[in-house]
């Protein structure tokens, strides 16, 4: 899917400021916020789309600046795409992605989970569904052990489903071991 981008540039009146959890401010074009149901409703409720209304910065307490940058990149790429419609995808196991999307989501699982959380918080259905399908593509054709590694799931099954052989618990999949790679910077000191 691709769309032609009009050459009009956003005017300063059509921007709002969002503040990430670590205090960084981002200027967002109102056109971009249409893709986020959370932001779109907020703008509609506070009438931020009117030029005579004072626009206060919108605090996004659950989203870090790194996540916000990544999300803005997504919103800008899909700026002129038609509105996302949830298709009947339950029964389809075959799916393809744009090259841009594959490169965009070529990130460690830990970062992907955080991005998924942010997409859920901001309610961006296209991003949420795409991440889910990418996750599904990463587990397709893999054994239970490999899926556990990919999704960082600690097993509570004593024997393998197929072989009946006892499973050795992986000590590296503990909670502490996964905090090494993270998209989000460490939270600011309180």
């Amino acid at each position, binding site marked *: 899917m691709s769309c032609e981008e009009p050459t009009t540039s956003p005017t300063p009146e059509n921007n709002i400021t969002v503040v990430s959890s670590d205090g960084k401010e981002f200027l967002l074009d109102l056109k971009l916020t249409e893709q986020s149901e959370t932001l779109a409703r907020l703008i509609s409720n506070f009438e931020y789309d009117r030029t005579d209304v004072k626009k206060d910065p919108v605090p996004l307490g659950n989203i870090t600046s790194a996540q916000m940058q990544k999300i803005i990149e997504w919103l800008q790429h899909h700026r002129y795409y038609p509105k996302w419609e949830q298709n009947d*995808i*339950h*029964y*389809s*196991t075959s799916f393809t992605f744009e090259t841009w999307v594959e490169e965009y989501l070529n990130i460690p699982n*830990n970062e992907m*989970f*955080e991005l*998924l*959380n942010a997409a*859920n918080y901001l309610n961006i259905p296209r991003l*949420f*569904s795409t991440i*889910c*399908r990418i*996750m*599904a593509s990463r*587990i*397709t054709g*893999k054994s*239970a052990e490999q*899926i*556990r590694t990919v*999704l*960082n*799931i*600690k*097993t*509570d*099954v004593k024997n393998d*489903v*197929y*072989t*009946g052989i006892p499973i050795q618990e992986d000590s590296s999949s503990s*909670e502490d071991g*996964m905090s090494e790679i993270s998209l989000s910077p460490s939270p600011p000191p309180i």
Partner: protein
Amino acid sequence: MKFLRFPTLVLEKIFKNFAVPELLFLSFCSKRMRFLIQLLEKCRLKDIKTINYSFVSDDRVMILGLSNNNKPSIDLVLTPVERKKIVPMGLFGMDRDMICWTMVGRFQDKRWIHKSFKSRDYLIRDFDGAGASIHISSTHFNFVVWSA
């Protein structure tokens, strides 16, 4: 961040984006995962009314799940990498190895193809209508189960 650390509502939305075969393989990961999938995707799993197992050849099993409107919700072809590792399933007192062995063994003998091994049998439970059927042809062994 761990997958199971997502809030339940988020997990529900994630599962909705997964196809049934993906959920099936995901459910093998842990008991908690299986419980969550059963709990959150109950409607979709209950929607499957018929499951068709086809033992296509010696090492391939086709599983097709159909809902009420004959829409396929499971479409799997399983080809075991190492047959020795498969735990036999109990089907009317026969395990999978026995069925495959019987099918292959008998079908190599051409005298049996159109005589003893061509049949279509049904078993239907009286009180709710659930049942199973076995259909054996010269090329396929189909085992179908359905709920009421």
